[in-house]
């Protein structure tokens, strides 16, 4: 009797659990399907029936309208790729270096320095944006990609993560033997420590890249010229007046900005999920 009862209970549990999971899956994917389908339809079709799963034949038309606008969407791609790649390199390399300083050496200010990093972990750049903008204005660095890249050198969260990862995985004996073999400290870091930290660096690289690629606030206060716009800034333009009646084009534009991320996500999802599980990203 008890056995039957238990299996009946777990049956209903499973039905409910799977139903909720499938519902959430639909919720996650459906907006993107609508986006993809509507990107191929004409404005008139969308106005009549915006919800449809049958693709139209207007992809070319939408594209030609999209491409005829005053800005070039590929400029956004190019700028975003430059910014995201350089910022990621800076973040990962220098954060690993700072973590190495914190783990491998005994120095007087080591503990205070780490406490300091913990203290500023959560302070976002956004709250100091007015001062940052004024500083960049004085330096004539507005409408340049540099102020979007260089601040990435100091990334407290990444340093924190790297340190946590480095402590158990970097045996000091290896450093000692490298020193005996006559390697300098800088060479030890570049040729021994960096390769050993590859898995952690890969995880952090993915998140740094995504954060940098997706950020809108900083680029939108610093860049006013369309040739320096990043991808999210281009996306924000899709809500503008020139697209008011061009529904299909808006969907197409959105689709184009999502595509590279989605492709990358489905190749890297395993690592990304693992990275999130390690607490590698904050939200």
């Amino acid at each position: 009797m008890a056995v039957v009862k238990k299996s009946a209970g777990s049956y209903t549990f499973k039905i409910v659990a799977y139903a909720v999971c499938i519902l959430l899956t639909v919720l996650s994917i459906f907006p993107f399907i609508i986006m993809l389908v509507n990107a191929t339809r004409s404005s008139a079709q969308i106005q009549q029936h915006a919800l449809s799963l049958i693709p139209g034949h207007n992809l070319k038309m939408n594209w030609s309208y999209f491409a005829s606008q005053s800005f070039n969407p590929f400029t956004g791609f190019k700028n975003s790729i430059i910014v995201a790649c350089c910022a990621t390199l800076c973040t990962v390399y220098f954060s690993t270096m700072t973590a190495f300083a914190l783990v491998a050496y005994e120095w007087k200010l080591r503990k205070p320095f780490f406490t300091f990093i913990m203290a500023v972990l959560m302070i976002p750049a956004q709250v100091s944006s007015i001062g940052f903008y004024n500083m960049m204005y004085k330096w004539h660095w507005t409408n340049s990609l540099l102020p979007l890249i260089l601040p990435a050198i100091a990334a407290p969260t990444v340093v924190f993560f790297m340190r946590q990862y480095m402590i158990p995985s970097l045996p000091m004996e290896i450093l000692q033997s490298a020193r005996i073999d006559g390697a300098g400290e800088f060479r030890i870091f570049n040729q021994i420590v960096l390769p050993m930290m590859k898995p952690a660096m890969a995880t952090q690289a993915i998140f740094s890249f995504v954060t940098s690629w997706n950020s809108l606030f900083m680029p939108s206060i610093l860049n006013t010229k369309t040739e320096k716009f990043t991808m999210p800034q281009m996306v924000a333009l899709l809500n503008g007046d020139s697209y008011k009646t061009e529904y299909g084009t808006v969907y197409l534009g959105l689709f184009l900005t999502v595509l590279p991320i989605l492709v990358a996500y489905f190749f890297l999802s395993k690592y990304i999920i693992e990275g999130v599980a390690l607490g590698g990203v904050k939200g």
Partner: protein
Amino acid sequence: MKTKLKGISYSKYGYLFSIPFVVAFLIFTLYPTIYTAILGFTDCKGINGPENYHFLEHPFENFQKVLSMETFKTSLKNTIVIWIINFIPQITLALLLTAWFTSHSNEIKGKGFFKVVFYMPNIITAATVAILFNALFAYPRGPVNDFLISTGLRDTGYNFIANKMPSKLIVAFIQFWTWYGNTMIVLISGVLGISPDIYEAAQIDGANGVQTFFRITIPNLKTVLLYTLVTSLVGGLNMYDIPKCFNDGGPDNATLTASVFIFKQAFSGKWIYNRAAAASMIMWVIIALCSAVLFFIMRDKEQIKLDKEIKKAKKEAMRASKGGLDQWQL
């Protein structure tokens, strides 16, 4: 050579390798923060603002002005309301999914797939997501209205984007939709970090799934839950991309968050840098307070404490199983 090695002090390399971080931090974070604070006490505004400014006679004039502004109060209220509407369902759903995905008695198949799909919205550019939802809820016949009309739920379309409460709800929903997967994965990894011995003990003592979850999982997850709460709060206080791209803080400032307010004061044709700086500093203080809470939590994360917690959790497990027995006997 070896004898020489002993004499070398390596401590200078600790400083040397920290230099890039420290320099970048001083230039790009600390200096702008101080600069922002200073600007809050000046009359810096106008299109030529960044060049020349003077300190005010009444130093706190800007702060008083900002704090008395209806728009700022609205923006602060909106920020918190939107965060709460998003966070409560988010943490509830994340906890529920965590309980299901880590259940020992009822294995769910396809966990990996579900995790990947639930996390996906988080990786997409927030600006894209906001504009996509703006298009989905379009009036008179966006996809959502089309659905409502064709299923006969409504005769005509509903203008979601022009109404205040629906707009707030949609912005909160977008935030919820993009973050619940992330929260879930963090919580799952927290649960997997709990010693399996505790669960085994609970199982032997006859605790059921619900009891195990509330008496063992939740108490052991306290640190992770607090971490999630604080990070989400700080993220929520900074919310900019979604309300900005969804409807530029509108309609009638219904989705105007603090960050959008600051942006609008300083950069969208008004150039009131001093007031924006004062508002920034107010946000800075609020975020620093939240950050201090997190700092306190993380500092406690030492091994001794951990051992203590495991012991405590074991006791909890015992108590849980006892509680279960009591219920049974009743």
